[in-house]
């Protein structure tokens, strides 16, 4: 049943997404692709939409997937599921487990979990760019236009900090990338 699948799928996302929205993207991709709810392309569109609309990206993704799979009720189920673990954990921490955060075994688990998550995020970013730049139809055929757009965007993102002392905002980068897409791709 789709509602149950949405519930379980997004509970998984809610339970395992440590460290903010971009940390959750690999996990969301994983869950969404394994159930066959959206294509990889639509997922990246939704990340862009999530960046340019209010609210947390994780919640946005859940609402979108739920709605696209099972209408309004699906959206409610998926959104509730993604929010629930965070809600319950904070309540538990405040009510009964005030000392759990300082527990050394809990900290030991976290110290392994954190670098693992960073590795997963890194891999997801690399993979998303590789699949855009290398044409999937022909082996090792590099899409030069996509490569140029990638270089410009990377320069803007990582160079802006050095030049204007402030990093370009995600929304500006998305707007610029859309213009580059229309002009170059």
């Amino acid at each position, binding site marked *: 049943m789709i509602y149950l699948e949405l519930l379980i799928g997004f509970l998984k996302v*809610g339970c*395992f997404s*440590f*460290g*903010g*929205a*971009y940390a*959750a*993207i690999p996990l969301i991709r*994983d869950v969404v692709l394994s159930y066959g709810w959206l294509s990889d392309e639509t997922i*990246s*569109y939704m990340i*862009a939409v999530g*960046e340019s*609309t*209010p*609210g*947390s990206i*994780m*919640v946005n993704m859940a*609402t*979108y997937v739920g*709605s*696209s799979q099972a209408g309004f009720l699906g*959206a409610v189920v998926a959104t509730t599921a*993604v*929010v629930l*673990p965070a*809600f319950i*954990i*904070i309540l538990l921490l405040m009510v009964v487990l005030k000392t759990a955060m300082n527990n050394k*075994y809990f900290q*030991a688990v*976290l*110290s*392994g*979990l954190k*670098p*693992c*998550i*960073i*590795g997963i995020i890194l*891999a*997801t970013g*690399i*993979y998303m*760019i590789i699949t*855009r730049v290398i044409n999937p139809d022909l082996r090792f055929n590099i899409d030069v236009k*996509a490569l140029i757009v*990638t270089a410009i965007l990377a320069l803007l*993102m*990582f160079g802006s900090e050095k030049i204007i002392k402030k990093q370009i*905002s*995600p*929304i500006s*980068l998305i707007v610029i990338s*859309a213009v580059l*897409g*229309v002009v*170059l791709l």
Partner: protein
Amino acid sequence: MPIILDLFLNFVKIGFFTFGGGYAMISLIEDVCVSKKKWITHEEMMNVTVIAESTPGPIAINCATFVGYKQAGIIGAIIATFGIVVPSFIVIFLVSIFLENFLEIAIVAKAFAGIRIAVGILILNAAYKMIKKMKKQPLAVGILICACVAMLLINIFSFNVSSIMLMLSAGVFSLVLFTIKNTVNNKGGKPL
């Protein structure tokens, strides 16, 4: 104004005016809940952010639940969490109805081809920032590299392994290592 209504309206406002997720929201939550409303102190805000980073789920949700609970117990927690989610829920629900048709327009499709690359860069940037902040102990760096390589292989060859499995293995591995180290130390052996 009753506190419940006050909580609800303020968190709706926070939910509506924060673009780009988590960290942007935290600064607005701090502004409203610490500076204006004085619902929580700055220290409490710092603590809940740290807790939010080491517990799963959207960071803004953790904060909303915390502030709501402090002000009005369980009901407050529910209302604040509900309030912060409602605006994005409505916006995305509307987007989901129109997005498919929207994407069929040629120029929009081209724009989104560019956006896909930007999203990849944003994800890399998130990883870059986290690596900069991370304590670079050999074990952590090793886990990071292994996880990155494993995840790339999983993606490229479409292996049926979930990233959750990777996280669980890293957590268990680290716990086992810590336990062994602890036991050895307690027996007076050499620390690892």
